């Protein structure tokens, strides 16, 4: 009796030890996989930074040099002055800032209409709004180009900016999702007090929606920073190019002369603002992605 109890206890012990060993193995395996994968995913950007800080001979040394010696910070100012980087940066802002303002103004109004006013035809129109996301830009691209050409807007920023003041399906959808979460009682109380819808929108909803406006604003800014095909089509004059298109033009300046360290310095500078924004607003942005991603 005692013998069999002892054997059972021993076996239970062995099973527990076995489970613990298994646990340690799976945990270690998990960390190994995550660390290796992180390295793989980070590799291109790490290599960009390392290259951007290299002295010329180091760039072509094989096997590759991982720690530049000497570290050459001068690559950055040199790369950014050989090419008119500042001018292109300013061009990017000249487009991105009005686009953000226009998007926030128009989309918050429209989203308020869809989220908080029960008007006839709302469901169908909102569905139409979502359906327009499915229309490829390529279908609208050619008539828009011709339309803007007839208006004499080619080689100006107007084709890139003006449409932002007339809403966009994705930001409207995002803001509507946020506006829906604000309790209806707040609006009802204001309505009883005789507030107009515009006043409710300005005084109650907008102040509560500041975080969501920030998310949409940041997404719009990053989208505009990254926009390639718009400027490519509407702008011909290289002096007007924003960074997104101009960086490609630097290729002839840098790649062909094998000045890869400069190209990487310019690339790193292009990436930096977006990463800084993400770092500062990480939590809000991640929430923005997930809220609109699936909770629709």
């Amino acid at each position, binding site marked *: 009796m005692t013998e069999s109890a002892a054997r059972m206890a021993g076996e239970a012990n062995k099973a527990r030890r076995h489970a613990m060993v298994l646990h340690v193995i799976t945990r270690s395996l998990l960390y190994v996989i*995550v660390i290796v*994968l992180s390295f793989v*995913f*980070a*590799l*291109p*950007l790490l290599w960009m930074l390392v*290259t951007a800080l290299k002295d010329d001979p180091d*760039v072509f040394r*094989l*096997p590759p040099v991982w720690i530049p010696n000497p570290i050459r910070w001068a690559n950055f100012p040199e790369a950014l002055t050989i090419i008119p980087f500042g001018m292109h940066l300013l061009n990017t802002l000249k487009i991105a800032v009005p686009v953000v303002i226009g998007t926030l103004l*128009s*989309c918050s109004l*429209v989203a308020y*209409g869809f989220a908080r*006013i*029960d*008007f*006839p035809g709302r469901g169908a*129109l909102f569905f139409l*709004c979502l359906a*327009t996301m*499915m*229309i*490829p830009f*390529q*279908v*609208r*691209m*050619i008539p828009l180009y011709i*339309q803007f*050409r007839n208006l004499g807007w080619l080689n100006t920023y107007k084709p890139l900016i003006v*449409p932002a003041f*007339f809403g966009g399906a994705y930001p*409207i959808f995002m803001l509507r999702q946020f506006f829906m979460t604000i309790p209806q009682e707040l609006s009802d109380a204001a309505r009883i007090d005789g507030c107009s*819808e515009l006043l409710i929108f300005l005084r109650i909803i907008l102040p509560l929606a500041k975080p969501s406006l920030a998310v949409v604003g940041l997404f719009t800014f990053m989208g505009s*920073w*990254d926009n*390639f*095909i718009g400027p490519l089509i509407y702008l011909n004059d290289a002096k007007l190019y924003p*960074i*997104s*298109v101009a*960086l*490609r033009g630097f*290729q002839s300046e840098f790649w062909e002369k094998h000045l890869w360290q400069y*190209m990487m310095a*310019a*690339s*790193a500078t*292009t*990436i930096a603002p*977006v*990463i800084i924004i*993400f770092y500062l607003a*990480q939590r809000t942005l*991640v929430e923005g*992605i997930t809220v609109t*991603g*699936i909770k629709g």
Partner: protein
Amino acid sequence: MKSRWSRQTVRNAMNGYAFISPWLIGLLLFTIYPIIASLYYSFTRYDIVRPPRWVGLENYATLISQDLIFHRVMGNTIYLVAVGVPAGILVAYLLALLLNNEMRFRPVFRTVFFLPTLVPAVAAAEVWRWVLNSQWGLINAWIKSQGWQVIPFLSSQAWAKNTLILIHCWAQGTAMMVFLASLQDVPRALYDAAEVDGANQLQRFWYVTVPMTTPAMLFLVITHLIGMFQYFTMGWLLTAGGPNFSTEFFSIYLYRNAFEYFKMGYASALSWVLFLIIVTFTGITFRTSDRWVYYGGA
């Protein structure tokens, strides 16, 4: 009572349409008009300089029966979608599963996997061009040091498409976040119940995790399908259709016809074919979704 109700309806209608009016005007000017115009141009020959000339179905007939490059383009695009969409979604899913485990420094890992999504396409293109360079690029330097043959990532017909798909898989941060949120929404109780029923880890994954994340999968399959059929920027920057048309995808060929050959009518016909393909595939995905998407959670 009835008149009060209708007055309220009228007021709501006026307010509602006033608020959505910017979008309505935009819809007319920047979506509906261009779509109709594009359909019209697709039946014409139009080089911008001279007015459009009606040619009926000629553009469509040409692209179906005569344009051999277009047939190549269709093949390339189908390959890109058929391989790239599942590959991208699979990578995002695996990364999300990995990050769904409790672990130290999880926010750091999450940021590392998400970061590539934030990198503007132009900069990402230059960085990859350098990493994949066949002489001094990091990957080929290592391959050479092993005594193997250098891989012409961007300059061989066999590799170029796959290289672009690999780069696409590298930037799956948004999809990963969507999956991660979906994974974290799976109620613990379901796992506990499955465990009580004697399900092992693999069974718990297959019978609980997978069904509960199918709504997120549907969303991502649709957005990825739409996006992949329109794939342009990275391809245009890195290979611009080459070598020998092996990465000439639908949107690249369309852009070339419109803005390099100024065949606006032909390009419009292409854009309508693209539109119909996208609508068809999205429709099929929605139609079949009730067979594989599980909404038990909602």
